[in-house]
């Protein structure tokens, strides 16, 4: 099975052995042992490990420049504000967008909720004439997909319930790919929002955005992209992808926890009413009412995640320094070997097998006769960190005939030897649990 690399990443050279060694040396956690083995961290899709410089940037902010931003006339307040806004600029350049189009949130989940709640507030008549075009009414349709992470599903379920809009789904085919043919009939005149994943957090397959986004554009629907699993692996340029809003989490991009990013087209962000209310987001406040600043401040009430933003900017510089094209080239070879190796193990079923889909280095499997939790424990005993469960994607697992799966996901520091160790371990699961010595072993 040959998978193409993700779009826009085709020509770069993978890291050499010495480059990879130098990259690994930047991750202090890779020095530790687990269960008497060197750590093999293959759970980067859940959260990425942090290089020294990211940990240092966050620590250094607290050590030398900590202060509240956007207020106060003292020197530290000025320096902290500069660092915070410089972080926003760094993210904006990374995305090739303007800095007022970058909103910091606590995590990607909050970013998605922010969009859903802002649309809900517009539907209540808040935000005046500017927000009116975004109001949803009964009969309007929100389209999401069967493979979404719960964070890009439940906020839309709740928005539909609040507004009377109808929630519809683009179905998933047996091979884990979004069904573009059916999408043509799901997305229609009443579609107001299309919310979908950039890359599936279960199959690692890149969504066919070039085919799906124009369908939404043709009917004037807002396009919301969940790029959490894309941002660490492929160049993320929302304008080139022609989406209105995109979100990703900082901690999956080698940054700190507690920070997410919302990109929104300036026109959309400035028109939408706020979601959370409080200080730092207003122009004039009376006892009766308030007026709000434009984006991004209108969506960042309260003291923001300053140290986290500084840390995330350092993570982005780390990724930029290596080059996402080279990261993608290296990970592509690992991902290919991982998928092929897993698919070749008897009694192991790979989830997501569309030969046409580009993939990132992430694969999930069901081990026949062994529950995913037990399989994960077996890997942990060899120092291999993998994710088990439904990965917050219950509808997709149900669709693919599984209750849980074992997920292996690579990162910039993953070596070919680590992938081989993982494949060898997965190949040993069924015999350890006795699943290969009786005929009744079936997937629990």
């Amino acid at each position, binding site marked *: 099975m040959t998978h193409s690399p993700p779009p826009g990443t085709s020509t770069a050279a993978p890291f050499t052995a010495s480059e990879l060694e130098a990259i690994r040396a930047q991750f202090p956690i890779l020095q530790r042992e687990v*269960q008497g083995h060197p750590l093999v961290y293959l759970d980067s899709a859940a959260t990425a490990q942090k290089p020294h410089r990211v940990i240092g940037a966050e620590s250094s902010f607290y050590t030398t420049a900590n202060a509240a931003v956007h207020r106060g006339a003292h020197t530290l307040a000025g320096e902290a504000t500069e660092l915070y806004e410089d972080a926003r600029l760094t993210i904006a350049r990374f995305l090739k967008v303007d800095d007022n189009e970058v909103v910091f949130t606590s995590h990607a989940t909050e970013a998605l909720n922010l969009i859903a709640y802002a649309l809900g507030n517009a539907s209540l008549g808040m935000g005046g004439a500017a927000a009116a075009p975004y109001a949803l009414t009964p009969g309007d349709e929100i389209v999401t997909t069967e493979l979404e992470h719960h964070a890009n599903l439940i906020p839309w379920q709740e928005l539909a319930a609040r507004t009377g809009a109808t929630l519809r789904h683009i179905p998933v085919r047996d091979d884990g790919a979004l069904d573009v043919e059916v999408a043509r009939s799901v997305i229609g005149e009443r579609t107001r929002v299309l919310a979908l994943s950039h890359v599936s957090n279960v199959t690692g397959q890149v969504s066919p955005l070039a085919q799906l986004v124009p369908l939404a554009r043709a009917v004037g629907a807002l396009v919301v992209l969940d790029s959490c699993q894309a941002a660490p692996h492929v160049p993320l340029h929302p304008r080139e992808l022609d989406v209105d809003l995109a979100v990703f989490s900082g901690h999956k991009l080698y940054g700190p926890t507690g920070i997410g990013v919302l990109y929104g087209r300036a026109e959309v962000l400035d028109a939408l009413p706020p979601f959370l209310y409080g200080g730092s987001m207003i122009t004039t406040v009376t006892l009766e009412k308030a007026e709000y600043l434009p984006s991004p401040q209108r969506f960042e009430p309260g003291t923001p995640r300053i140290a986290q933003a500084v840390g995330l900017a350092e993570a982005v510089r780390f990724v930029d320094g290596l080059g996402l094209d080279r990261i993608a080239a290296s990970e592509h070879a690992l991902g290919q070997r991982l998928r092929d190796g897993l698919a070749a193990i008897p009694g192991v079923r790979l989830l997501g097998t569309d030969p046409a889909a580009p993939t990132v280095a992430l694969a999930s499997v069901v081990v026949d006769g*062994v*529950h*995913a*939790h*037990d399989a994960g*424990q*077996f890997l942990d*005993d060899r120092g291999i960190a993998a994710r*088990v*469960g*439904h990965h917050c994607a219950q509808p997709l697992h149900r669709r693919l005939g599984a*209750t*849980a799966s074992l997920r292996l996901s690579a990162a910039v520091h993953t070596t070919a030897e680590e992938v081989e160790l993982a494949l060898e371990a997965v190949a040993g699961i069924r015999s*350890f*649990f*006795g699943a290969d010595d*009786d005929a*009744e*072993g079936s997937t*629990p």
Partner: protein
Amino acid sequence: MSALEQLYQQIILDHSKHPHGVGLEVGEETSHQRNPVCGDEITLALRWNAAGDRIEAIAWEGAGCSISQSSASLLATLAEESADEGSPWTTEEFAALIEEFREALRSRGAIPLDEERFGDAAALSGVSKYVARVKCAMLAWVAAEDLLTRRA
């Protein structure tokens, strides 16, 4: 024996593959317990004697990892053995046993399950070194405790 082999002793793998006590009756009072972390599910019923003061059997249905499923099976086996020996558990005896089981499993390997008291279920001692798996092993026992509490 490695820690992993202590966790997954043959008794546990056998009970997981050939579970004991499976099968609920329609209308029976049950407790349904879920472990949302890994999706384990157990629905369990206590079967009382005619006087209603002693447990004659434990029945259950469920799905999940080998630890959660074997633990339910081993609990059903233990209840049946006690009844067969002419000493079915009273509410108090069973509640004390559940508490003892919990204490051992939460001990991070410090307190092994007493084989005299727990029989084959003592094989679950190895779970206590794996904090993340204690909830799996407790699931059936928590369901039983829930039913005892409701009755009290």
